[in-house]
Structures are given as C-alpha cells and as structure tokens.
C-alpha cells in the first residue's frame, strides 16, 4: 500500500492493484482492436487505430467506425458492466455465487427480452427496453420479498430469494421458447446465449451512459461496501449506514446488469468469474470493483476475438462460458489454500 499525503489530504493506492488494472485495460483494448481488425476484410491493428482516430482512408474508416467498432465497444462496455455488477453482488451477498446470473436479475432481463421477441414482436429498441424492464422489475420484486421490517435486507436472504426468482423465470423462459414457432424460438435462443453480432451504436450508447453514471458512483462508494463484509453489526458500529449502502449498490448492480444484458444478451459467466479472477490477481481482500470491471471487459473482448476466429460461427456467450468455466476450474484445482476458495 502506498499513501499520497498533502496537508489534510491523504489518498491511498495499491501498486499491485494499479499494475493489474493497467495490464487488464491494455489487454481489453488490445483485444478490442484485434476484434475490429477481424472479418472478411482484415485490417491491421495500426490501421484500426488510425481509422478510429479518423486518419485512415475512407473505406477503412467506414468499415471500422460504422460496422465493426460498435460491436467491439459494446463488448468492452458490457464486460465492464458485468464484472462490476458481479463484484457488487458477491460483496453484498458475501457469497462467490451471488452473481446477477444466479440471483435472477439476468434471467428476468432475458424474460423481458423474450416477451418482446416472441410475444410482442418488437424490434431492437423494444428488446432493449424489455430487457431493462425485466431486470428492474425482477430486482424490485426480489428486494421487496427479501425485505423485512426492522431487519432490512440480509445478504443470504437476498441470494436465496433471488435463486427462487431465477428458477421461476427460467421456467417461464423455457415455456415461451417451447410455445413459439421454430424460427422465432431459434432467434430467441441465439439472443439468450449472449451475442455481439450486429450490434450498432444504438446498443452501445445507452450502455455507455449507464456506465458513465454508475461506474464512478460505485467506485466512490466502494469503501462502505467493503466494510459490510465485516458483518452487519460490526459495519454499523463503525458508522456504515449498512442498509442504505446495500440498497444503493443493489440499484447500481441491477442497473449495470440490465444495461449489459440489454446490449449483449445474458452473456454467461463474466459476472461470476471476473470478480473471483480479479481478487486472485490483485491478492487483495474485499470488493475489487475496478479490477473486476476491467477483468470483465478483458474476458468479454478476448471471448469475442476468439469467437470471430473459430472455424464455426458461435456467439460470444459460448466462448465466455467455456473460457470462464475452464479458468475457474483450473484456479480451483491449483489453489488449494484455505480461504481462497
């Protein structure tokens, strides 16, 4: 730990965490540049950078900024949002499985989108709106059911109620898919896997706005969030408004998960794996919000890059699922130390 002090001002920072963040950001951006360069018409990384800066020839510039950049940017932003959201929920629930995938918010988001795709036949904007509404309504319902007068919302209770909601919505999603006609159901299943295909600025911009508000807010409030891991009583005795912090972070976490899902579909495993990976990389206790967000972005960008270079075209969700799962399994089997599981 290093401290910068000037008069009454004092700021602390962790060299290792800073280096990790730098490397992760570089990896994420590097992968995104390669993603933009990939396709039927390959573009070299320097040309990609020139085109993004508006200095290349016009054809390349068009391909990059209009066709491929939105996809890469959506991937980066969705990764940031999912990683951050996962870190928030794992800290609140004090459970490595307390990620938005598991406690129903992503599932609810998918339900909203499926209803748009299969029942109302809405377009891209309607799907976005549906998935955000689905996530927010699910989160609201879960929070209200988990809320108890006097005791507020307890981490474990929130996870359990969320798991219940997830199971119910999962069933609803399957029901919708079995009742739809085959072609539409196929489209819905594709969406449910999580994909960055054909994303344009319409998806990237709302996600960027959500992140612009929620990411700094979450980082500024990170300290009380981490204090919650001492237990409700201890945190409260140290002057942390536990219930208010929790409610704020749940709102932020849901917003992030909803925005990411709306843009990229329920990309699996990023929210679950990114915080765990970030903690092992930084070797710091507590919620590592920025490292987790950057890990998410790197995971998703690398996943997208791989999906583009596979011999068969699969959506990015397939790749992140396999990648994240294999990596977590590898971590589990190599780090046997108590306290790191």
């Amino acid at each position, binding site marked *: 730990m290093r401290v910068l*002090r000037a008069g009454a001002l004092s700021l602390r920072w962790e060299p290792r965490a800073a280096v990790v963040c730098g490397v992760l950001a570089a990896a994420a951006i590097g992968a995104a540049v390669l993603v933009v360069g990939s396709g039927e018409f390959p573009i070299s990384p320097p040309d990609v950078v020139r085109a993004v800066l508006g200095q290349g020839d016009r054809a390349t510039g068009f391909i990059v900024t209009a066709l491929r950049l939105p996809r890469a940017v959506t991937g980066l932003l969705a990764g940031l949002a999912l990683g951050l959201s996962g870190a928030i929920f794992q800290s609140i629930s004090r459970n490595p499985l307390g990620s938005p995938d598991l406690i129903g918010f992503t599932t609810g988001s998918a339900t909203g989108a499926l209803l748009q795709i299969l029942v109302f036949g809405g377009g891209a904007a309607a799907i976005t709106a549906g998935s955000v509404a689905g996530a927010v309504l699910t989160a609201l319902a879960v929070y209200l059911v988990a809320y108890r007068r006097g005791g507020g919302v307890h981490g474990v209770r929130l996870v359990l109620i969320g798991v219940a909601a997830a199971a119910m919505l999962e069933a609803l999603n399957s029901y919708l898919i079995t009742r739809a006609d085959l072609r539409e159901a196929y489209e819905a299943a594709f969406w449910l896997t999580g994909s960055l295909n054909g994303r344009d600025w319409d998806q990237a911009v709302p996600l960027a706005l959500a992140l612009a508000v929620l990411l700094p807010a979450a980082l500024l409030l990170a300290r009380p969030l981490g204090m919650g891991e001492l237990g409700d009583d201890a945190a409260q005795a140290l*002057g942390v408004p536990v219930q208010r912090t929790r409610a704020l972070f749940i709102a932020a976490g849901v917003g992030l998960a909803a925005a990411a899902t709306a843009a990229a579909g329920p990309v699996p495993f990023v929210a679950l794996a990114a915080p765990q990976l970030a903690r092992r990389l930084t070797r710091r206790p*507590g919620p590592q919000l920025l490292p987790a967000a950057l890990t998410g972005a790197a995971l998703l960008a690398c996943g997208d890059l791989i999906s583009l270079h596979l011999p068969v075209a699969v959506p990015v969700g397939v790749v992140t699922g396999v990648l994240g799962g294999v990596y977590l399994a590898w971590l589990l089997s190599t780090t046997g130390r108590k306290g790191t599981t």
Partner: protein
Amino acid sequence: MTRLRAEDLTLAYEKRVVAERLGVQIPDGSFTVIVGPNACGKSTLLRALARLLRPREGTVYLDGDPIGALAPKRLARRLGLLPQSPLTPEGITVGDLVARGRYPHQSLLRQWSREDEAAVTEAMEAVGVTGLADRVVDELSGGQRQRVRLALVLAQRTGILLLDEPTTYLDIAHQIEVLDLCARLHEEGRTLVAVLHDLNHACRYATHLIAMRGGEVLAEGPPAEIVTAELVERVFGLPCRVIADPETATPLIVPAGRRRTLTAENL
C-alpha cells in the same frame, strides 16, 4: 451526569418483546459488566446501546443527545462495539483488518492520515499483535483473532467500548488474557461495557455490575456491594455461597454442592 444512559426502553424483535421500560446508566470511567441468565435481554440491551437495535419505545442518550439522531460516523467516533460473532473477509491480513477500524475517521479525501497510521500501530501494540500484522486472519488461533478484533475497535479510538461476550469460544487462559487486556484499557481511562457469561469473571473485573433477569434490572452497583447469595439465587436460580476471592478479595460464587464431597468423615 453519565455519558451513556438509556431511558424507558422497550426492546423487541419482530413481535417478541424482550424488555419493557428498562432504564440504565453507565457510570463514566467504569468497567460495567452486564450479567444474567441466557435470554435475559443483556445482549439485546447492549445492541440497543450501540444503536444496532432501534428501541420500540424510549431513548438511548450519548452525551445528552439521543443516539438515533447522531450521524453514523459521528456515533462511531465516540462509541465502539465488538459484536458477538463478527465476520472476517476472506484472506484479509491482520494489519488490513485493524485498519478498517479507522473507517469513521476517514473520508474520500482523507483516506489514510498520519493519525490513522498512529492509531492502528498503537492499537496493535496495545493488544500485542504487532508481529502478526502481515499474517492472514483466517490462519490465527481463536485467542489471537479475538485480540485482533479488539485492536480493530481500539483503532476506532472511542471513549466508550461495548463488548458483547468477548470471551466466548476462548479457553480459560485466553479468557483471562482478554479480560486483563480489557482491565488495562479501562485503567487507561476508557469506559467499558461488557456482556459476560461467567459471573466470577464479572465480579473480578467489573467496577459496576448490572444483573438482569427477564428483561429487568434486578440489581446494579459495585460487585462487592451487591453480589450476595440471595441475588445469585434470584438472578440465576442457583443456590450458592459467596466467599471472598482469595486472589482479589472480590466476591466469588461457589455453587452449592449437589453431591456430598468425599471426605474422610463420610466415607
């Protein structure tokens, strides 16, 4: 005038009322110990004093202000609490954990002042865990962990410390170690309020004893003045004798024998 007092408290969880119209005053500079049988409301009272439980009726006052009206951090700068079963974040080191006690003194632009550093160093020295600073808390023994927990509360630098059963799960040597530490903290001028299970420990270390049963305070005062065989019988329903502790001359409770002692006479 006492810094911490409670008036007319009615304490309840959901529908279960634990205590009604309860009033206590914590004498300044005292080592107050609350004793009583299981479920008598002693931990509940401590939680109310720490504002972890909002009383259904009545008010807890700190320095004359109702504690409900104090900003959380402001309260935490004056009053510290060691909860009964705190959690430990995974993989946290002793130094990092103790540093968390500085939270109420910190802000976004004042993340780690020299005072923070001094308070943490001092707290770790006070409980003798300085050498463990870089160890992971999960790997420590129960006694060491409890000392680290105390260091966290000490780093908070509050004049009043509330301790909820600080000796549970510790062996006898570690219990005495923790209590001796508390006595030293008290001698240094802090006001301590502890919930203890062991009546003899309470008598030995407390300067002010509060005996509770069924949500009521049955007696309070210095142990030497109030602890009698009748009181113990009334509070715990335990027939006993009270003798002078051969070490400290404080009251020592000897439960009445249910079995005849084996002596040469009755053999």
